Every structure is written in structure tokens, then in C-alpha cells.
């Protein structure tokens, strides 16, 4: 075990898997000589060479399209979108080409697309988004979103090994803020939910950076015992874990950092309405960003993103219901 940041854990996972499997290669903008916009791949080009750590043109469609071709002939490319927001330029290659290749041609597309996502640092509307739901809605893709350093490493390795295209959501605001003990060597984190904290009176269901917001908001909530469920994987969604938690607690708050409409939490809420109706002791409450662009201005951004205070208020409201 070594203590490292979330960001170093991603680097460690990539490096471990590249050392173990020479089919793994990286592609992205400024990931080679410069070491990546966030320095995730710092030092990689020296160890693995420019053939496996490829600096690409500013063309996400080209990055993903090339990776799909490489995967079809047996390689395991990992694409970095410099910011998750820019993935929209590669959308067609991910959604229509990579996601449907197995269905149409029977060819697995073993690619991983890393999406540095999320706000909280005045990045403005083009550098702060959480676009995971776009991909949840599209069959053929998996979507994961780690919240801890240990899971960041385990899930990047599991994503590289999974034969499907996997969208790996890495939250920029966790990069250097979150630290944790990370096991040495190679391990896979399953695409399953994790109980971040046990509890009985209410469950907060969330993922990514909001796990930390939820833990802080409910650490001391008038003595209430609050469970926090970290989904970790959005596709596949760990329905059993969600239904178990709802059965146990009967009161549910679902938190998304993404814009509220059709977010991952909307799917979670729909699942609960369909399958856990008789376990509910109150309405399912949602806390998410309103359907607005993420503002650049620090006070405005703080007003838009779900805060510890907003999550706490929602929990209080439901506990008293």
C-alpha cells in the first residue's frame, strides 16, 4: 500500500497495465512530450516511447476513430480527451462506431476513453461539464466514475481489460484533493457499487466527486445514521446494490453533479420507483446542478453545483418527513 493522490493512482494504473500488456497504448493531445494537460502521463513517453504514448492532432474524432481501428486489430488503446467537454467532437466515433461494432460486425472494440470531468475550479462552461449521461443513453458502452484513489487505479485497469468500449470519468476536482492508500501492482475494481458509509435512516446514492460532498454533508446530521452508496459504475448500474440500500433505509436522496434532466440519478430514481415502491417511506429527492451552463464566476458556480449545504438540507427534509 502506498498513499497517493487520485491523479497519481490513475497514472499508476495506466503504467502498471502498460508494463504488463504491450497491447496497451495511449493517445491524446499533449500527453507525450508535455505529459498531459494535468500531468497524468508525465514521464510515460520516456518509459514507453512515442509509439505507445502518441501525441495526436487536436481532433477528438480522429483520436477515437484511430483507436477503434487499433482495437479491431487487437490493440488496447486508451484515449485521453483533454477535457470531458471536448468529447462531443468524438461523439459519433464513440456512440455510432465503437458502441455498435460488436452488434453489427461481431468485433469487440476494446478501447478506454478517459474523460477529465466536473467543475468546482472556475473552469467555465467548456471545461466543467459532466457528460456521463450522454453515454449511458447509448447502448454498447460502459461508463465508470471512481471517487477514490484505490478505485481510480482499479477501475482504469478493469476498463482497459474489459472488451467493451469504456468511458472512464475522472473528476478533475478530485485529482489532487483526494488521497488514499492504493495497493501495489495490478488489481481490478469490479463494476459494482460500494458502500462508502453504512447507515440505517437514509441513503444518499451518488458517484464521483459527489461521494465526498455526500459524506461531508451527512457526517454529523443531528445524530441520523446515513448510508452513502458510491455507484462507481453507471453502466452497468448495480441495481441489486441500489435496491438493497433502499430496502434497508427506505428514504433516498440521489445526488448528481451533472445537470439534472436525464442525469444518471434520474435513472436511479426511475429504478427505485419501478422496483422498490413498497420499500419507500418518502419521496425520492434529487440534488443536482440546475439545467444551466456551468458559470465561470466563482460565486455563481458555487450556487449552481450541488453543495454540502444543499445535500444536507435535502437529507434533513427527508429525515423529518
Amino acid at each position, binding site marked *: 500500500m502506498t498513499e497517493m493522490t487520485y491523479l497519481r493512482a490513475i497514472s499508476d494504473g495506466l503504467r502498471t497495465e502498460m508494463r504488463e500488456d504491450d497491447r496497451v497504448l495511449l493517445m491524446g493531445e499533449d500527453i507525450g512530450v508535455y505529459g498531459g494537460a494535468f500531468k497524468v502521463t508525465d514521464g510515460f513517453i520516456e518509459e514507453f516511447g512515442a509509439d505507445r504514448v502518441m501525441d495526436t492532432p487536436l481532433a477528438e474524432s480522429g483520436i477515437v476513430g484511430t483507436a477503434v481501428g487499433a482495437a479491431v486489430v487487437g490493440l488496447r488503446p486508451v484515449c485521453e480527451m483533454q477535457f470531458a467537454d471536448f468529447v462531443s467532437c468524438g461523439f459519433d466515433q464513440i456512440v455510432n462506431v465503437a458502441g455498435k461494432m460488436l452488434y453489427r460486425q461481431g468485433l469487440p472494440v476494446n478501447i478506454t476513453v478517459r474523460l477529465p470531468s466536473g467543475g468546482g475550479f472556475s473552469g467555465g462552461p467548456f471545461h466543467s461539464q459532466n457528460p456521463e449521461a450522454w453515454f449511458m443513453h447509448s447502448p454498447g458502452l460502459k461508463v465508470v466514475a471512481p471517487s477514490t484513489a484505490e478505485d481510480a487505479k482499479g477501475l482504469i485497469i478493469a476498463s482497459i481489460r474489459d472488451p467493451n468500449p469504456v468511458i472512464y470519468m475522472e473528476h478533475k476536482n478530485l485529482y489532487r484533493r483526494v488521497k488514499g492508500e492504493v495497493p501495489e501492482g495490478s488489481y481490478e475494481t469490479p463494476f459494482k457499487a460500494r458502500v462508502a458509509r453504512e447507515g440505517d435512516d437514509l441513503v444518499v446514492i451518488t458517484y464521483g466527486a459527489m461521494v465526498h460532498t455526500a459524506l461531508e454533508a451527512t457526517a454529523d446530521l443531528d445524530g441520523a445514521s446515513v448510508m452513502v452508496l458510491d455507484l462507481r459504475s453507471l453502466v452497468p448500474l448495480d441495481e441489486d446494490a441500489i435496491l438493497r440500500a433502499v430496502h434497508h433505509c427506505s428514504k433516498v436522496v440521489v445526488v448528481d453533479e451533472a445537470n439534472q434532466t436525464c442525469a444518471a440519478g434520474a435513472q436511479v430514481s426511475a429504478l427505485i420507483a419501478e422496483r422498490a415502491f413498497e420499500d419507500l*417511506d418518502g419521496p425520492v429527492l434529487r440534488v443536482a446542478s440546475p439545467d444551466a451552463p456551468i458559470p465561470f464566476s466563482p460565486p455563481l458556480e458555487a450556487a449552481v453545483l450541488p453543495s454540502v449545504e444543499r445535500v444536507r438540507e435535502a437529507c434533513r427534509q427527508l429525515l423529518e*418527513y
Partner: protein
Amino acid sequence: MPQMGVSVAEGTVVEWRKQRGDWVEADETICEISTDKIDTEVPSPASGRLIEVLVQVGATVDVGTTLARIATDARPGEPHSSEVDRPAAPTRAPAAAPPGAAGAAGAAGAAPPPVRAPAARGAAARRYSPVVQRIADEHGVDLDEVEGSGRDGRVQKKDVMAYVQARGGAAAPPSDEPTMHIESPYRPGAGASLSGPYVPPEGRPLSRMRQSIGEHMKRSQETAATCTTWIEVDVSRIEIARRQLGITALPLIARCTIGALVEYPLLNAWLKGDVHTVHEQVNLGIAVALGEDGLIVPVVRSAQDLSPEGLSRRIRDLARRARARQLSPDDVRGATFTITNPGQFGSMMATPVIAQPQVAILDVEAIVKRPVVVTDAFGEDAIAIRPMVILGLSWDHRALDGALAARFLASVKKRVESYEA
């Protein structure tokens, strides 16, 4: 008497859940009926007071016969109209008549729309969340007696849980008797009977389901010339496919059996007297145990068109509905071949009884790891550990001979042992 399936013409009233004078909600079970295929509950077509029971328990009547009458202008808690000394002309809706008839009666009587009973007494009716209602149902709690700690006195889950716990503690005080070892012959209060003469408990008539099963089984044994042939099969490939697809072995073995039935249609047949009907379509009966109550054999229709996953889904759905007693008579009719699968308890061999008028039934026993002789690619023999199962086929010697039964089983074996997912 509702129509419970296309070919059911009559039914027997088994039990009245509501008595004359009882209030009944729409869709609440009013009585239980039994047909020659299944037993089922009859939901009330309207809310009101049961004012007349027309068909007594045990009576068998045609479909469409009015079973009872419900006064739809009654109110819960009011005295029965016959007890009030006023010239009342209650509108009457025939209970459990076919939907068309009920609609016609309502229209002809120009009845006011049936009034739903209020959820609780008085104006201060309380509303409860789904989980609170479920817990109250499970523990028989009258929610009016539970103090609510939520907003505006709402009863929360924790309130009803605390109530159940408090009441449970009072109702069942801890026993003074020390816990006995399971082998101990001593039982509290049994002292007197130890020395006295044995008094057998009173006998009771067999359930209708048991009587019906008994009659079918006896009739089959009197009708068919039943023989049983066994074959031992290596299910290594089924075990692999089962794990890949996340299903049980049964639908995979069923898929292989269906393939063999298409190859040997003489086993996918009926024999009624001397009329022999060979089917192209495979309607596969699957025996589903209903605990100690008995068993029922729902049918997967056109099973030849289904993949193992499709078979698995259909079998699961039928089994679930069978255990919930929700099968319709059409779900249990028309099987052309049956599979029974009691091996889950570890048994190795059986001689199943053919379901008339079919000509064969396949028995799938427990999958057990056994040392077997296998031959490798170079023709060398070796002993290997393989998951094995014994398939038993009971067949009717009137319809076919042992050689065909053996060829059929060999075909199933070949399909199972060469299975490709």
C-alpha cells in the same frame, strides 16, 4: 363465474372469502373457485356490500352464472339495507359475471357510479407510505393505533417498526424453558402421552390438487405401457454455457431435448385410444413443484423457436406465476412432451409417470461430478472428473419401441455433449 381460459366451461366455488353483509372493495378477493385446470381467486367487480350469495361452496356452475350480488349504493359502516326500515331500492351489480354482462346491468339500472370507500374513518384520514403499509400488512398492524413522528404526525417506517417491536415483546414473552438439544426426546407437555396409548391425529381429506394429481397419475399408469430407459450424459459443455449465459442447466438441456424431438417427432406425440397425433410444434411441459401442496406442469409453447435464454425466461416466468397461483388454464394445456427436473435435491434416478395423452417424459436428475473414461485427440484413454447427469425417459410402449427411445436419448446425449454456446 368468470371465463378463466378459452376451453373452461364451468367452475366450482371452493370458498367464500366474503359473507353476506360484508363490505367488499373493487378487486378485493370475493371467493375462490376451482376449475379442472387450476384454482384461482375471483376479484370483486365493484365496491359495495355483498347482499346475496347465489352459489354455495361445492356447487359447480357454468361460466357466466351470477355468483353473488353486491349493492353498490351501500356505504361502509352503514347497517345492511335489509336491516334498515325504509323502502330502499339498492342498485345491484352481479358479482363476477362476465364484463359485458356487468356493464349491461349497470347501464340498465342507471346506477350512480360506485363510490369508493374512504381509506380510513372520518375526515382525519391518514395517508401512509408504501413501506409503512407493507410492514403493517406483514405484521397485521392497525395503523390507526401507531403514533406518527413525521411531519404533521405522519407515521414513518421507524414508528411502525418500533410499534411492532414493542407489541412483539409483549405478545410473546421469553420462554422459561431452556433451549433443548434437537435430539432430545423431551418435549414440554409431552409427559402424559409418553406412557399413554398412541392416539393417531385425525385424518383429513386430501387437497383438491393432490386428488387431481393422483387421478391423472393413476389413469396414466392404467392407460400407458410405461417403460423407462436411462442414459448417462457428460454435461461439461452445458456447465460452461450455463455460466456464460447466467442461466440454469435446465433450459440448455431442454434446448437439446427439443432438437432431438424435432429429429424424432414420434416422441413429440399424443396417443388417445388408437388415435396417434404427431406434432411438429413442440409445446414443452415443465413440472414445477409447489412445495408440499403438489406440482403443476405449465407449458412453453412453440419451444422449438426459442433460444436457451428465451426458454430460461419463459420457464422462470411460468414457475413464478405457478408459485404465485397465477397460471391460467391455457398455461397448463396442450403439452406435447414434458420435462421433470427433481435432481436439484440430489436424487440420481427415477421412473417418471407419463402425462396423458403424451407418449414420453424426460427426467433430469442431479448433476454429479464422477470419474469417467475419456479419450483424447490421440485415441488415448484417461480417467477424468466430469459433471455427469442421468437422463431417464419414460415412454409408452404402445406408441413406440425401445430402440427408438434409445436413439432419441442418444440424440439428446450427442447434442448435450457437443453443445456450442
